[in-house]
């Protein structure tokens, strides 16, 4: 492949950002100016092709340091990695967190999704924009759900600049609670190694007021610390908790404390059992995927383990971009070692020696905590060439997403890691056969993986005794909206929706509950006896999805909510297939037309919505297009919206 590059050159800053990730170029073929002597050597260029998967990290490196991706910078990355510039441009423009046009170093993402809209993020956004003005050097961007719905309305500030001294990352995590916290990746006094103030920093602000959001945007390095993860767990301290038991009681930055709280007993048991028996335990426990598709985990593991093709890969799906979902964030922030241990067990069982943790780009604290946990585990021989002295090699690499809900779809996620556009692949072939890098891959959700720990410590039988015969084990629910105590709840499968809402303190005048997230469906206040199980929700004509429960009282205008859902899917469609690319636009247009209409005046457009929705469900390539019409349909059929 002969690649052609333009004449634009990277700035020193851009070059440094890329070199910090990829190392200095070995030969001029790797991106530097070509010298006569070097022209004869093309070796480096060819080698770099295997590093295509560094494309997304390289774009992050530029975005973190400079705030946007210039032509010269993109071309430099392409030279270093032997990626055609047209393709890299296609990748860079796919992700919402990147910009290929100049923009201020600081971007303030204001969530305008369901829970935040209901909590007044529209007014927040307007107030913040008015206060900051065009001279502030802050760009305000309306964002889809930031995964902080229990603290709506939420904002996230990302300021580009020279990164924190890497050695400080661990300290920053430990210093948390007092100082600026792990979320601000800069050092506390705002001074970098070169004495410059322009440090890369992030700040989460939720619940946000105009004041606090403006402070976080203008001085993210000294923004107030986020509340501890257990603040999102109203049941915290309850001795009956299984998945959430350590959150709030364990120090998420201390491997020793994790071990003192029972950490790594599950892995020891796994080694004692051997891979086949671990898979049998998981199968007998009846564990079903918690990422939304509800696929039996044991079957997936078995199918991957049995593939003759090697290597096998493990992917942890921590993309969590479904509006209303934040359970994986709380697990990763509050109990990061649990995920590291669970991934090690999953890899051991399925014969993988490398695991990728695909983490959504909007989770700075989860990133800091997991980075720290993985490093510590590696230092202590719990990851690496010889895990626990058992002769088993396994390591984990974190990959950051960059703002694309579709990358949570399992095959889109593979493409994203590989450095391609995050477009879903058509199935078959299925990931267990041809997944990441074309190899057998097992991909699981964070919560699914964390369930493996109690399965191994309590045994399949005891685990299967929790819940109902076909929905076994504990389940996490993300409750937000019109409730007194929003947060992550853990209940055995089989509790009813009403019981959950009572726990969360549902307010009067409940109008509707969105079950399963934007891809799920609405139910009425008189349907609260729906049992929260896979079979129970299916029977009731709805879905559990990823465990979202959003309550809306009658102050929330339903048509606006439905419009927001349509807008979400239109924004997040990858654009690959026609039913979804154009269908989501036509749905949004129809909902706009009937925003204030009911009855006969809305009938034509509702019929149109139904016809388009049906084709989207039947003919779209992936789950995004197939489910994009679910919530609106349920609002029309079950809630009588527009009647």
């Amino acid at each position, binding site marked *: *492949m*002969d*690649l*052609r590059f*333009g004449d634009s050159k990277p700035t020193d800053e851009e070059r440094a950002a890329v070199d910090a990730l990829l190392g200095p170029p070995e030969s001029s073929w790797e991106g530097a100016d070509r010298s006569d002597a070097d022209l004869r050597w093309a070796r480096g260029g060819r080698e770099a092709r295997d590093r295509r998967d560094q494309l997304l990290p390289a774009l992050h490196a530029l975005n973190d340091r400079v705030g946007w991706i210039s*032509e010269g910078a*993109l*071309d430099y990355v392409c030279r270093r990695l032997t990626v*055609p*510039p*047209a*393709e*890299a*441009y*296609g990748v860079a*423009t*796919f992700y919402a967190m990147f910009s*290929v046009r100049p923009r201020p170093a600081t971007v303030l993402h204001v969530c305008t999704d369901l829970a935040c809209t209901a909590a007044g993020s529209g007014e927040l956004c307007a107030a913040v924009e008015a206060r900051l003005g065009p001279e502030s050097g802050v760009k305000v961007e309306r964002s889809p759900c930031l995964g902080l719905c229990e603290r709506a309305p939420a904002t996230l500030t990302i300021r580009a600049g020279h990164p924190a001294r890497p050695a400080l990352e661990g300290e920053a995590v430990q210093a948390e609670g007092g100082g600026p916290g792990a979320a601000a990746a800069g050092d506390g006094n705002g001074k970098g190694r070169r004495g410059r103030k322009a440090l890369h920093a992030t700040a989460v602000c939720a619940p946000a007021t105009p004041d606090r959001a403006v402070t976080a945007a203008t001085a993210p390095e000294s923004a107030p610390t986020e509340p501890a993860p257990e603040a999102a767990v109203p049941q915290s301290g309850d001795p009956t908790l299984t998945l959430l038991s350590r959150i709030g009681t364990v120090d998420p930055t201390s491997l020793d404390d994790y071990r003192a709280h029972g950490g790594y007993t599950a892995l020891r048991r796994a080694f004692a059992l051997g891979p086949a028996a671990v898979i049998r335990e998981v199968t007998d426990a009846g564990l079903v995927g918690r990422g939304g598709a509800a696929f039996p985990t044991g079957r997936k593991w078995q199918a991957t383990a049995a593939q003759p093709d090697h290597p096998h890969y493990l992917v942890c799906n921590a993309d969590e971009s479904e509006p209303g979902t934040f359970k994986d964030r709380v697990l990763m922030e509050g109990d990061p070692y649990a995920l590291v241990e669970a991934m090690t067990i999953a890899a051991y069982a399925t014969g993988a020696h490398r695991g990728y943790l695909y983490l959504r780009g909007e989770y700075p604290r989860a990133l800091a905590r997991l980075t720290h946990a993985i490093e510590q585990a590696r230092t202590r021989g719990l990851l690496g060439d010889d895990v626990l002295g058992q002769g088993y090699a396994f390591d984990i690499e974190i990959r950051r997403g960059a703002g*694309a809900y*579709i990358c949570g779809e399992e095959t889109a996620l593979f493409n994203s890691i590989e450095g391609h*556009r995050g477009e879903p692949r*058509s199935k*078959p072939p299925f990931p267990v056969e041809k997944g990441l890098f074309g190899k057998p891959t097992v991909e699981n959700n964070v919560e699914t993986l964390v369930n493996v720990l109690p399965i191994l410590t309590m045994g399949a039988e005891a685990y299967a005794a929790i819940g109902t015969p076909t929905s076994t084990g504990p389940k996490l629910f993300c409750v937000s909206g019109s409730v007194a105590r929003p947060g992550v709840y853990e209940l055995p499968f089989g509790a009813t929706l009403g019981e959950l809402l009572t726990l969360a303190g549902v307010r009067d005048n409940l109008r509707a509950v969105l079950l399963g997230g934007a891809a799920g469906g609405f139910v009425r206040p008189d349907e609260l006896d729906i049992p929260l199980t896979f079979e129970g929700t299916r029977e009731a004509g709805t879905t559990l999805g990823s465990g979202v429960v959003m309550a809306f009282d009658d102050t929330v205008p339903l048509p606006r909510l439905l419009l927001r859902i349509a807008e979400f899917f*239109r*924004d*997040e*469609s*990858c*654009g*690959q*297939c*026609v*039913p979804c*690319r*154009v*269908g*989501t*636009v*036509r749905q949004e*247009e*129809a909902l706009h*037309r009937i925003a204030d209409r009911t009855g006969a005046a809305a009938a034509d457009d509702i019929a*149109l919505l139904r*016809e*388009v929705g*049906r*084709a989207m*469900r*039947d*003919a*779209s*390539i992936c789950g995004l297009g*197939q489910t994009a019409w679910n919530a609106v349909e349920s609002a029309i059929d079950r809630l009588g919206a527009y009647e």
Partner: protein
Amino acid sequence: MTAIPLGVPRRLVEFTLDGQEARVPEGSTILDACRAAGKDVPTLCEGDTLTPKNACRVCVVDVEGARTLAPACSRKAEPGMVVRTDTERARHSRKVVLELLASSVDLSTTPSVAQWIKEYEAKPDRFGPDAARVDEEPRVDNDLYVRDYGKCILCYKCVDACGDQWQNSFAISVSGRGFDARISVEHDGPLTDSACVYCGNCIEVCPTGALSFKSEFDMRAAGTWDEERQTETTTVCAYCGVGCNLTLHVQDNEIVKVTSPHDNPVTHGNLCIKGRFGYQHVQNRD
């Protein structure tokens, strides 16, 4: 002794197609089987020389037991499959897909679409006059070919032809996402600043006329393009020793564009810049 290559014998897959037994060699798609059986299934993103991206979804068929419809162009026939090409469900999806496409881009130069729209009783107008369209000005930035993305259905054929399936130039890709996704070169610049080598293989595979010869574009603009009056003559390119087949499209004694036969086992319809665009010398009469 002469060795006669027999090829690896392929097993036959037996399945049911519209209630009839169908037998196709292993690896065949449902579309292959449909065509062998003389069934008409509409296709847009499928191309005879490329691996289909199955993005248009106009070829969907009903596979018994499947939750969703399957793209006939890409789904391999499996033993025992029960496929129906003409159910109400499949027809409904095709109709809506045609409506969605026709309401969002200009399909006036896409062959067959008008006929399918009639056949499936698609009504692209029903999304109203304000339905969002890809309204882009044609990009005329060189003398050889024009990019008119207002006609593009994002079938990915040009991307594949320019990329690893044929040309290996990788000059074009898809940028942006969702409804804003567009075919573009690096940094969305003019073609002349890109890695394009002007082989024109992307024009060869474009099903909509979104990519077209400048000559054709100009004649259409002037109202003089008339395929009825054109003749096609296939000949051999005289520039180099490869000997590619050229099909000269001639109107009023002028070559108006050059294509290449897709069934040629050497070139599969691909040419280089000289064969594709270097025809002016033939008609220099001074």
